[in-house]
């Protein structure tokens, strides 16, 4: 079953790649003048980075706390 799904995905991907078309990833940015589109772009990139930053900082902080506790236990 899984192999069939993978096979179909590959076939559809291959056929799709034979007929490339240009698409707008963000419908809001279509036909906008350049400054607004640039604003949207930077905003999207900034907000995309945020979840990774938050999870990274919280995860890193928890990891650091446990590492420190382990070090103290060994001493």
């Amino acid at each position, binding site marked *: 079953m899984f192999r069939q799904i993978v096979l179909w995905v590959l076939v559809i991907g291959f056929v799709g790649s034979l007929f490339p078309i240009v698409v707008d990833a963000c419908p809001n940015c279509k036909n906008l003048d350049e*400054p*607004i589109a*640039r*604003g*949207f772009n*930077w*905003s*999207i990139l*900034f*907000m995309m980075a*945020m*979840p990774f*930053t*938050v*999870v990274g*900082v*919280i995860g890193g*902080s*928890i990891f650091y*706390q*446990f590492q*420190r*506790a*382990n070090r103290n236990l060994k001493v």
Partner: protein
Amino acid sequence: MIHSELELSENRPLSNAKLGILILLGAETMLFAGLIGTFLVFRMGNDLWPPLSHANIQLPRVVTGINTVLLIISGYTMFLAQRAVQNDRVKDLRDYLIFTGALGLLFLIIQGSEWIQLIQKGLTLQSGVYGGIFYVLIGCHAVHVLGAVIWLIIVIGKAMAGKYSSISYTGVETCTIYWIYVVALWPVLYFLVYFA
């Protein structure tokens, strides 16, 4: 029984309270990221900033800069307060907490007076995108400072009552984390809104 469970929680590598405050700060970061993202759209979408309709309005950069320094100092005194309680210097703890709270209040008073002046000049929440994003972004941070000051007053009350020691100081620690977060966020907003 309850006391021993509390002690057990505080002796873990990461106490429940600390984990809770980290999750809260994660949510706060996402809130401010959304607001900053909105600001970026408006700022980069306009070549003229402030827009022509608000060309006569100058944001008070110097006074706000001094205010920024005051807030950063309050972050340092809050850090010193935590150091004091870790070393069982209870009197120093109270002094640093009171000094920090006073600086936080001073920050809010100065910002409030700036807002009054800006409103008198015609910059209001309804006066277009420029006023709207300014008051929402800066106001959201001010509400957080106010929340931090209220929290700090509660911590000061408990410190006065002798509830904190070098063994048990989770209240001071979580308040310090929140305070330093609010302090660290402000320079980012200041440079973004006042200089971008």
